[in-house]
């Protein structure tokens, strides 16, 4: 049952060193504030799962907290490469990381299989693709009815899934709107889920009956973190900070500059700074 907690407490109580953790959000609603709290608490040896690792995994990897990454697209969207991840893969800095690489289709369906309580996802994919040769978790099964050769990958079952959402109500139900990505599947596939939200409201009045709502009993901890997705965005609250994504490419290009940025903006910072960062990105801001 959902507990309302402060962010530090929600992370400390739910994520332990060595855990397999998915911080999801497909470009939209990426849980940056939660990832920064994870870094501040120095919870390490993590196996991280995420379709599109994005800046938060560049930061976690660059701070040496990651031993393995399960992913399908490791880029800075629309900008280029993830330079801290590259440094880890190409030079083992600050530590080598193990990679398990998939396609988007495989990852999305592996989360879905996890949520559905199945051991694996079966789909039509990876035909002629090189990943089959380098990832032993990509296998083939024959359809028992038609004989068609189909791809199979193990279900994703994180110890913890962390997401950011627009709002929770006082009971602890969570509402996600806009590009909903793979968050519902990632939460239902996990043993525990931590959610940060823009705000907590009395109730979800006038909600569309088909809205994406996670009932309170599917979530372990909820923390209010206004602006917590920045520089990603929260639909209806604030825009994506595209300039920050462009800027990250320069920050992450240099180890010292990266470490200095992390010291100032993460290690010595508090979750409350996210609220200030999005002040100019709100739709009603001008």
């Amino acid at each position, binding site marked *: 049952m959902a507990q309302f907690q402060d962010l530090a407490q929600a992370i400390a109580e739910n994520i332990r060193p060595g855990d397999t953790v998915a911080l999801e959000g*497909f*470009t*939209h609603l990426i849980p940056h504030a939660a990832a920064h709290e994870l870094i501040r608490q120095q919870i390490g040896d993590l196996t991280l799962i995420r*379709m*599109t690792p994005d800046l938060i995994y560049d930061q976690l990897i660059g701070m040496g907290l990651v031993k393995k990454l399960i*992913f*399908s*697209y*490791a*880029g800075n*969207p*629309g*900008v280029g*490469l*993830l330079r801290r*991840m*590259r440094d880890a*893969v*190409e030079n083992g800095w600050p530590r080598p990381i193990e990679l398990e*690489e998939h*396609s*988007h*289709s495989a990852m*999305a*369906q592996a*989360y*879905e299989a996890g949520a559905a309580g199945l051991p694996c996802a079966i*789909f*039509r*994919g*990876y*035909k*002629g*693709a*090189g*990943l089959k040769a*380098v990832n032993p978790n990509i296998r083939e099964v024959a359809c028992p009815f038609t004989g*068609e*050769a189909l791809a199979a990958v193990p279900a994703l079952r994180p110890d913890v899934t962390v997401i950011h959402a627009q709002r929770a109500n006082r009971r602890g139900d969570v509402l996600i709107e*806009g*590009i*909903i*990505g*793979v968050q*519902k*599947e990632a939460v239902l596939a996990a043993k525990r889920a931590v959610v940060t939200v823009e705000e907590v409201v009395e109730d979800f009045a006038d909600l569309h009956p088909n809205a*994406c709502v996670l009932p309170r009993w599917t979530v372990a901890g909820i923390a209010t973190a206004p602006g917590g997705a920045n520089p990603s*965005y929260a*639909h209806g609250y604030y*825009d*994506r*900070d*595209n*300039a920050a*994504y*462009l800027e990250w490419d320069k920050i992450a290009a240099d180890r010292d500059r990266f470490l200095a940025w992390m010291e100032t903006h993460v290690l010595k910072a508090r979750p409350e700074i996210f609220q200030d960062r999005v002040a*100019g990105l709100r739709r009603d*801001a*001008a």
Partner: protein
Amino acid sequence: MSPVTPTEFMTIAAARALSNDDVVFVGIGAPSAACNLARLTHAPDITLIYESGTIGTAPEVLPLSIGDGELCDTAVTTVSVPEMFRYWLQGGRISVGFLGAAQIDRFGNINTTVIGDYDTPKTRLPGGGGAPEIATSCGKIFITMKQSRRGFVEKIDFFTSFGHGTGGDDRARLGITTEGPVLLVTDLAVWKPDPETKEFTVVSLHPGVTRDQVQETCGWTVRYAETVEETPPPTDLELTTLRDLHARTHAAHSGARPTAAA
């Protein structure tokens, strides 16, 4: 109006390949510019789909990522990512997949994974994302990228997504039922696969481009179709629409925000 640049020419030539009836899975970067230019000019009813789940989107500016908020705001509907890949892509609802590439070979096989060895790469690239299944599940594949010796290679370092393999009926032999790469538009030329060998051959050169230029920027020996035409130059409408789109996009992404009325 200033003269058309090679990149603009590429985008405009690529846009022309799309029609009103197409349902297009749009890759980010050059494909996204071409698809939106088509929508803003000759194909206003084209359905553009981005892998974030936005179906039938019509953004005012080019998205920096596949999941920008405007894609959702302007879409007919937004579905979850598992649904996107299962029902819409794997379900066979998409007529054209429009991709870019870091490396391509003469058979339209694409690498966006690594330069060098997979386990000890010289350069770790972002990886495939949706491309491995886009390449095999969409009805056909269009590719657009600038020509260079780094990009147009004899042998790609990694098969991120499958084109025509080693040519001929390689796709069919792997049980792939879709057409695969049928068009490659570059800054210099338009290429289409030979009907038999499936090797990309030049079918038209952009005005002023020589065969030497095409060869200098290509790592394999370039073959030409029997008749090589000249790509028709951009119209004023195409060029103006593209430049306006880029200007709006640049203003939006550089952090410039609308100023409040006094």
